[in-house]
């Protein structure tokens, strides 16, 4: 049932700006792919190209084996013929139609029988836990409820592909958490190939089977959430993903397995690297001691930010500032001395000029 999606060399201009720049990616059947990036990175445009709402200026798109768009062959299947569903950021429920009519609109077009339609509406509303709302108008429901109806509208006609354009961004934080779990559950039970657009890295990391990080229309990295988090392909991805942010330390390779950062040295696999580099260190990858320990570097505590389940500590040593994280409530106080020990396998090394990953703990 599930189908793959293949995008080849897709390019889309808005005026002189390349909103999508030569993007190629393959989405396996039944996977949950998130397009992640800051606003203006081209993720929504890419989604709209796949949906058929934008006409790309180059490249091809396949759903399964079927060519649905080709610039060279001047083929472009209209959105309605692509067998996909789209949930919009602002829900786009038709305000003059009741919930039932919103859901049956597409079914009527497909020529479904009346009884079957009734059955389908009931079934779908159950799926999104909105039984009994058939007679409501969109404006008579809360944002969260409208969101569920928008989902139901897409689910009702059983598209092969789900497209979602920041569907949770208009909800409050609490509701967003609940909906994440439900969307994931929904994907799990329907097994439809899903493309999900968001600028929220937590959403991407928690829900996806694959993440595609984009910037300025270019695909930066396409990988599993785990790989994107632990082995960011370049400094942009490393910096964009993770909260608190990754520490990016300027350094110089001073020998095999040794990088000098400010007044201290870090031991890690430097591969073929030489000259100026950037070391990336996740805040959770340093061990904090209040006593001197071997191979640890002494730092001053600049600020302590407890948040219940964990404590963020900003430490400094001369010009170098490092953010680290400790589980629970830390006993470290401001202006204390601490010793940080870095796990050499957790450090990533980037070329200073290109910003690309040189070596990793592998």
């Amino acid at each position, binding site marked *: 049932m599930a189908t793959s999606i293949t995008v080849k060399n897709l390019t889309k201009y808005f005026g002189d700006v390349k909103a999508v720049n030569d993007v190629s990616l393959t989405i396996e059947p039944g996977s949950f792919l998130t397009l992640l990036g800051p606003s203006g990175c081209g993720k929504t445009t890419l989604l709209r190209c796949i949906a058929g709402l934008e006409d790309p200026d180059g490249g091809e798109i396949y759903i399964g084996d079927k060519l649905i768009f080709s610039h060279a062959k001047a083929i472009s299947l209209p959105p*309605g013929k692509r067998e996909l569903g789209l949930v*919009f950021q602002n829900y786009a429920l038709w305000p003059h139609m009741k919930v039932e009519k919103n859901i049956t609109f597409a079914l009527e077009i497909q020529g479904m029988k009346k009884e079957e339609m009734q059955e389908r509406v009931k079934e779908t509303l159950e799926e999104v836990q909105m039984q009994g709302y058939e007679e409501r108008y969109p404006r008579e429901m809360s944002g969260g409820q409208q969101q569920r109806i928008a989902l139901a509208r897409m689910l009702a006609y059983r598209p092969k592909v789900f497209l979602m354009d920041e569907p949770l961004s208009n909800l409050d934080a609490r509701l967003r958490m609940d909906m994440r779990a439900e969307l994931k559950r929904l994907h799990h039970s329907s097994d439809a190939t899903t493309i999900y657009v968001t600028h929220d890295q937590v959403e991407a990391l928690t829900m996806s089977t694959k993440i595609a990080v984009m910037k300025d229309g270019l695909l930066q990295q396409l990988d599993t959430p785990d790989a994107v988090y632990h082995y960011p392909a370049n400094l942009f991805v490393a910096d964009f993903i993770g909260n608190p942010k990754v520490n990016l330390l300027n350094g110089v390779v001073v020998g095999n397995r040794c990088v000098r950062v400010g007044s201290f040295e870090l031991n890690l696999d430097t591969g073929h690297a030489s000259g100026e580099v950037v070391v990336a260190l996740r805040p959770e990858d340093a061990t904090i001691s209040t006593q001197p320990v071997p191979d640890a570097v002494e730092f001053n505590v600049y600020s302590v930010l407890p948040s219940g389940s964990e404590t963020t500590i900003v430490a400094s040593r001369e010009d170098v500032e490092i953010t680290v994280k400790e589980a629970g409530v830390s006993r470290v106080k401001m202006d204390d001395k601490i010793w940080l020990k870095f796990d050499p396998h957790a450090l990533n090394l980037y070329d200073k000029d290109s910003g690309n990953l040189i070596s990793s703990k592998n």
Partner: protein
Amino acid sequence: MASLETSVERSSSSYWLTTVRRFVRWLTRPHVILSLIMLLLMYYMIIIPLYRMLETTLTWQMRDVAAVPGAELGGFTLYHYIRMVTGALSQIYLYTPLKHSLTIAAGATVLALAIGGSLAWLVVRTDMPGRNLVNQLAVIPYIMPSWTLAQAWVVFFKNRLSGGTPGVFEFMFEQSPPDWLAYGPVPIIICSALHYYTFFFLFVSAALMSIDSSLEESGELMGASRWRILRKITFPLVLPAILSGFVMTFSKVMGTFGGPNILGAPVRYYVVSTMIRGSIGVGDRADGFVLALVLILLSLLIITLNQRLIGTRKSYETIGGRGFVAQATKLLKWRKVFFVGVIIFQALVIIIPIGLLVWSSFMLQDGNYSLSNLSLQHWIGERGTIYNHGEPGVLLNPKIYKTAWNSIRLSLWTALFTALFGVLLGYAIVKGRGTRLSKLVEQLAFLPYVIPGIAFGAVYIAMFVKPLGPLPALYGTFSLLVMVSIADKIPYSSRSGVSAMMQVGRELEEAAQIAGASVWRRFKSIILPLTSAGFVSGFLLTFISVMRELSLIILLVTPDTQVLASQTMFYIENGDQQMANIVILILIALVTLGSFIISRFRGGSLKKGLGM
């Protein structure tokens, strides 16, 4: 389409086939097709008429052949321009009327600004009692036909110069009013200003409402006097609104025909619009068109000037967008005085003119104010009397019924098509936003705005005396009246269409597109239901404004296609004053009924009809 795709896929996709396919795909986008259709329609309705008009002024006409030796029918010539601009008759035909037109337009605009601006200030920014009432009354003079006041003026102030009968003034004060008060520029300016001050009232009150009064308060805190604040802070902020009102009023007055004809003709005070009718009436079509072109150029000039003056830098429209927190100016002991003054003013421009028209309609003989002269002759009199050239009273007059029916028919058809054009133009422009095609459609749709009413009528004569493409010669037909009325309303329908369409988020249509809905279905189930409220009120507004339109159609009506508005003018010119007054009253009744329906209708208001 689908079969085409597969066949091409099988063959090697040759270059030209993909090009053709790309072109077809571009062409079959709904907004592209619509844009092209609308461009074609507007080409027929606006561009060709203008071109024909220009062509007529540059070629020898039938009557020139007889009058000028060497003239060859249809040959190129600058004769008409030379004749109108530098010839011996240019003073009479062009310069004097132009001077008169500019005088009354300038005078009426300034007076309208004073009236409309102060009323707006009183309603929006003071604690005067009864502000809601005044707000509603202020737009009534504009709803009445523009020459109502002129006609009432004649009933009151006329002296024996026309018709030889005394007016109410002479009857009451036993003194004949001087010519300058009875006819000519002074009454024309006053009557026009009292009709068109509504533009200023609406524009300025909208602007005043959008100004955050803290801007003024901060001036007050710095110790500026109230007059200084008004001059240095408030006035510059509402200036763009004033200029818009200025442009609209000035070009409307320039192109208006009714008032200047009623009040100017008896003393031979001609303006460009009455001159155009005169020239065309005696068959000097090309000369009339030269004058019409002068009017068009003038209003183009004013609009360009306005855009230069306002520019984007001085557009304050977004200021204080948080909604107004206006502090009402306290009028203190003057509150009542202002209120009474305003109410008296409203009575003067609404009740008294209508009262005068009613009174005069019951006078068997015009100008005889004795009780024994009161009669129902003009309302329900028999056919074949010595009165009104033997016509029966209005209510028994089949001609009037036919004319009224023509008016209603014309207004209905125009309103229908205007609403339709609004939907189509709105869709084509909004969905194509950013493309050159969309911009072209929007600009072309704006063009009729610069063509004054009487000139537009002239343009249409030029076009349809001869068959044109698939269209037969339409001169003298009812369809021609409908066409010119639609064309004249295109700028308004495009503006209201665009604003209605802007309110429908594009996602709503896209969601239907994804669900597989065809263009027609999207239009029928999504776009139309969501924009209909705006278009219904637009429909009603067009209905009442076409009903009282005179300048636009006066050159185009024939005895068969007569409407109420033009009928009043023919009665006046025939000296059948009472009949004319009754017809005006019927017209007012119909228009009032229409506005009443609008006010009942959700979202309907005169403001929206003006595209604000």
